[in-house]
C-alpha cells in the first residue's frame, strides 16, 4: 500500500442544480429516465416513441405507476411535487386488516438491511458469523431479527420443556432448575451491549472490508431479562470465598465452555431468557443464555445448561487456542475479556453515498465494557480538530450510547472519526497507538478509532490514517 498524503483543502465543486421533480418511480441507474424525457412526457403525453422508452421495464410491480403515467397529467410541471399533487394508491383504496401479519415484519422497503456473512471469512457456515447492519440502525437497541450471530457448531431450536440448568462444583447443594423454575424467580431487566472479542479484528493489519456492517457488525445491544447470577449461586450455597471462578457451559454440539472471573463479573451477570421483551431468539441462545456485561461475547454462553463453581480457570479450547492474543514477543495474552471503550460513526459510513452538500446529522454508537460513556468527540478532518458530540440519554453502563453531531458539508473531501471517553477516564486510541504496543497479529480487542473518508463525489470509504 503506497502512502499518500492528502491536502484537506476545500475543493470547490460546482453542481448545476436542476429543480427536483422525479415525477415517477424509476429504476436506476441502467433504466434512468432523463429529466428531459419526463418533461417531454409531461408536456406532450405519450406517443409510440416515448412509450418505447417506458417499455424497458423500469416500473416496479409496486404501484400502478405506468397506468398513472399513461393518463394525462392533472398538473403541469412546475406546479408542485407529484407526490403531493397526485393521489397515491394508499390514499384512495382500503388498506389491510389488523393481524394480517400476526408476527410483524419490517416494511418491504427495508429488505436490504439484513444480517450478512463476510465472504471468505470462514469455510463453514455452522462455525461462522452473521454481521448486524449497523449502517441502517437508529438509537441504541438492536432489533432481535438483526442481532449478530456467531456459532461454533451450528444452532438449534432447543425444546424449552426439556431444557435444564445445573449448578454444581463448590456449592453446598448441586441443583437443577427447569425453565418453569427459573422464570418464577425474581428477575431484572438490563440493557447491555454484546460485542465479539474479534469485532474489527479483520482490520489489525490494514483496511480489509468496505462497510461498518463488516468492520463493527459483531455488536448488538438489547434489554435482557433474567435472574441475577448471584441469586442462583447463593441459592445453591456457593463458596464464593474460595470459588473465584465459574465454568459456564452451553447445550449445543460444541458444549461451549468459558471461565468467568467472579471477582469481576459476579455483581451484574444475568442468567437471561429474554431479549427486548420476547424470549431469546434461537440463534441467540433460546431458551437461556448468560449475559456478562462488558465482557466479550463468547463468554455470554448460549443455550446455557451448566454453571460450575471452581477455584481455578479451566483453560478450555476457546481460552487456550482461540480468543488469545499474540503479542510481538511471541507470548499470547490469555483471558483478555473486557471490551474496552470504543465508538464508530454509523451514518455516514463506509460504502455509503451522500446525495448532496449541506446539513447532515452525523450519528454513531459508543460503548465501554468498563462503565459509562462520558464524552464522544468527532473529527471531520482526519483527527486534526475535534468537536464534542451530543450524547443521547439515558447513558447506561456497559450499554450502547448514541451520539449525534450537526455538520454542514461543503462538498470538499473529509475524513470522519469518532473518539469515545468512558467514566474511568480511558480514551479510545488510534490504530497506530494499538499497533505500537500489540503489533498487528493479535486478532482480538481492536477498539481503534475508525476513519471514514468522504470524497467530493459523495462516496464514503473505509481508510486508516497515521
Amino acid at each position: 500500500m503506497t502512502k499518500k498524503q492528502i491536502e484537506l483543502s476545500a475543493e470547490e465543486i460546482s453542481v448545476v442544480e436542476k429543480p427536483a421533480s422525479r415525477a415517477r418511480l424509476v429504476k436506476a441507474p441502467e433504466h434512468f429516465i432523463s429529466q428531459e424525457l419526463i418533461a417531454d412526457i409531461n408536456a406532450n403525453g405519450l406517443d409510440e416513441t416515448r412509450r418505447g422508452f417506458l417499455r424497458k421495464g423500469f416500473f416496479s410491480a409496486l404501484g400502478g405507476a405506468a397506468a398513472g403515467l399513461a393518463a394525462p397529467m392533472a398538473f403541469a410541471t412546475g406546479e408542485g411535487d407529484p407526490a403531493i399533487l397526485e393521489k397515491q394508491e394508499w390514499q384512495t383504496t382500503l388498506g389491510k386488516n389488523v393481524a394480517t401479519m400476526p408476527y410483524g415484519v419490517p416494511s418491504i422497503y427495508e429488505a436490504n438491511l439484513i444480517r450478512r456473512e463476510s465472504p471468505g471469512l470462514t469455510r463453514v457456515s455452522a462455525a461462522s458469523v452473521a454481521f448486524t447492519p449497523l449502517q441502517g440502525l437508529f438509537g441504541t437497541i438492536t432489533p432481535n431479527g438483526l442481532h449478530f450471530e456467531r456459532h461454533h457448531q451450528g444452532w438449534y431450536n432447543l425444546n424449552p420443556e426439556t431444557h435444564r440448568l445445573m449448578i454444581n462444583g463448590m456449592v453446598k447443594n448441586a441443583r437443577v432448575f427447569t425453565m418453569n423454575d427459573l422464570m418464577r424467580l425474581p428477575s431484572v431487566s438490563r440493557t447491555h451491549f454484546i460485542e465479539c472479542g474479534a469485532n474489527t479484528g479483520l482490520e489489525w493489519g490494514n483496511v480489509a472490508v468496505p462497510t461498518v456492517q463488516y468492520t463493527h457488525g459483531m455488536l448488538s445491544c438489547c434489554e435482557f431479562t433474567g435472574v441475577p447470577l448471584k441469586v442462583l449461586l447463593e441459592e445453591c450455597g456457593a463458596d464464593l470465598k474460595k470459588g473465584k471462578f465459574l465454568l459456564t457451559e452451553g447445550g449445543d454440539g460444541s458444549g461451549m465452555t468459558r471461565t468467568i472471573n467472579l471477582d469481576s463479573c459476579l455483581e451484574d451477570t444475568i442468567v437471561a431468557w429474554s431479549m427486548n421483551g420476547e424470549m431469546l431468539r434461537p440463534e441467540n441462545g433460546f431458551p437461556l443464555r448468560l449475559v456478562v456485561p462488558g465482557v466479550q461475547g463468547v463468554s455470554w454462553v448460549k443455550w446455557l445448561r451448566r454453571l460450575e463453581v471452581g477455584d481455578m480457570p479451566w483453560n478450555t479450547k476457546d481460552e487456550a487456542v482461540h480468543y488469545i492474543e499474540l503479542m510481538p514477543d511471541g507470548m499470547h495474552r490469555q483471558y483478555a475479556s473486557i471490551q474496552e471503550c470504543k465508538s464508530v460513526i454509523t451514518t455516514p459510513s463506509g460504502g455509503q453515498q451522500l446525495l448532496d452538500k449541506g446539513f447532515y446529522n452525523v450519528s454513531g454508537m459508543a460503548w465501554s465494557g468498563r462503565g459509562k460513556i462520558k464524552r464522544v468527540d468527532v473529527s471531520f478532518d482526519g483527527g486534526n480538530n475535534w468537536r464534542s458530540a451530543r450524547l443521547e440519554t439515558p447513558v447506561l453502563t456497559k450499554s450502547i450510547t448514541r451520539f449525534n453531531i450537526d455538520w454542514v458539508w461543503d462538498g470538499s473531501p473529509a475524513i470522519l472519526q469518532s473518539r469515545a471517553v468512558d467514566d474511568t477516564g480511558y480514551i479510545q486510541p488510534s490504530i497506530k497507538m494499538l499497533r505500537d504496543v500489540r503489533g498487528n497479529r493479535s486478532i482480538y480487542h481492536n477498539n481503534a478509532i475508525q476513519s471514514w473518508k468522504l470524497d467530493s463525489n459523495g462516496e464514503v470509504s473505509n481508510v486508516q490514517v497515521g
Partner: protein
Amino acid sequence: MYRLDKLFARLVFLGLAVFSAQLAHAQGVQGSTQFPGIGRNATPAEVIAWDIDVRPDFKGLPKGSGSVEKGQAIWESKCASCHGVFGESNEIFTPIAGGTTVDDIKTGKVASLVDRKQPQRTTLMKVPTVSTLWDYIYRAMPWNAPRSLTPDDTYALVAFILSLGEIVPDDFVLSNTNIAEVQKKMPNRNGMTRNHGFWSVSGKPDVNGSSCMSNCVKFVQIGSTLPDFARNAHGNIAEQNRLYGPYRGSDSTKPPIDRLPGSSGEGLAHAADTHAAAVKGPAALFKNENCSACHAPNAKLVGPSIADIAAKYKGQSGAQEKLMAKVKNGGSGVWGAIPMPPQSQLSDEDRATLVRWVLTGQ
C-alpha cells in the same frame, strides 16, 4: 452413557460414599429455603452425566488409556476428512499440527510465533495444556457427531495429535497416569501470559488515547485503503443500504460516480427497486446445509466439484437414486481417499432437490 456398574465404580472413585449420595438425593426433593418450591437437588448420576470438563490440574479426567496407533486409525476414519491425514489441512479449519520443533518442547515457548516463518498458527503452536485437547475432543468432536467418542478413544486421539508434533513417540500409550508428565512437554506451555488489564473490570489498560482537541496532527496521512479490485468483494453495497433517505449505498458493481447525485438522488437506485434479498431454492439449500464446505461449483476442494460430479454421472440411469443414497449414508473411494460423511440430517425431499440440482443444474 455410563452403565450402572461403571457409575457405581466412578462414585467410589470420586470418593463419594453411596450413603451421602442417597442422603443428598433425599434432600433433593425438598424445596430451597429462600425460594420455596423452586428447583431441586441434582442426583449424583445427573452430575456425572453433565460434569465432563477436564481442568489443567486434571480434575474431572476419567481413567483410561489409548495408543498413538489406535488414535491414527480413529483419526483416519473420523477426523481426517476435515483436518487432513496429518492434521495439516487448512481446507475447513485451521491446521492442528505443524510449526513446532523439538527445541520448543525443551523451552516451552514456540519460536515460530516470533519469527513469522509459519504462515498460520496451528493448534500445537498455541495450546499450553494437554487437558485442553482432551476436554474439547471428548466434548465436541467429531464435528458432526459430538459426544460419540469414549474416554479411551479420546486418549488415543490426543496421543496421535501429540505424536504429530513429536511430543510423544509413535509407540506411546497415553493414560490418566502419565498425562501430567506429557503436559510438561507441551511446546507452548510457557507461552501464555495473564499480565494484562483485560481480565478484570478494574484492570489497567495497556494503551490510552489522546485527548487533544485542536491542531493535533500536522498533516493527515492515509496509510491503508481498500484496493480497487476489492470494490465489489462484499457484493453490491447499494443493495446493503436503504434505497431512500440521505445515506444510500454506493453501487460497487460500477466505478465511483464522477459527481454528486443531487438531493433527489438522480441516477441512484430507489426504494421502488427494493427486492427481497432472500435467495431460495437448491443453491441456498446447498449453502445452508454446509455442502459448500467441501464442494465448489467448478473447483475441487475437499470433495469433487459439482461440475465434475455432473459430468461423471451424465446419462447414467439410476444416478439420482445412487447419489441420494450416497448423500444419506456417506461415500468413499470414488473421488479419492477422503470419505464423505453421511448427511443424515437432510429430509428426503431436500436430498432429492439437492441431487437433482447437482446432476442437472435445475
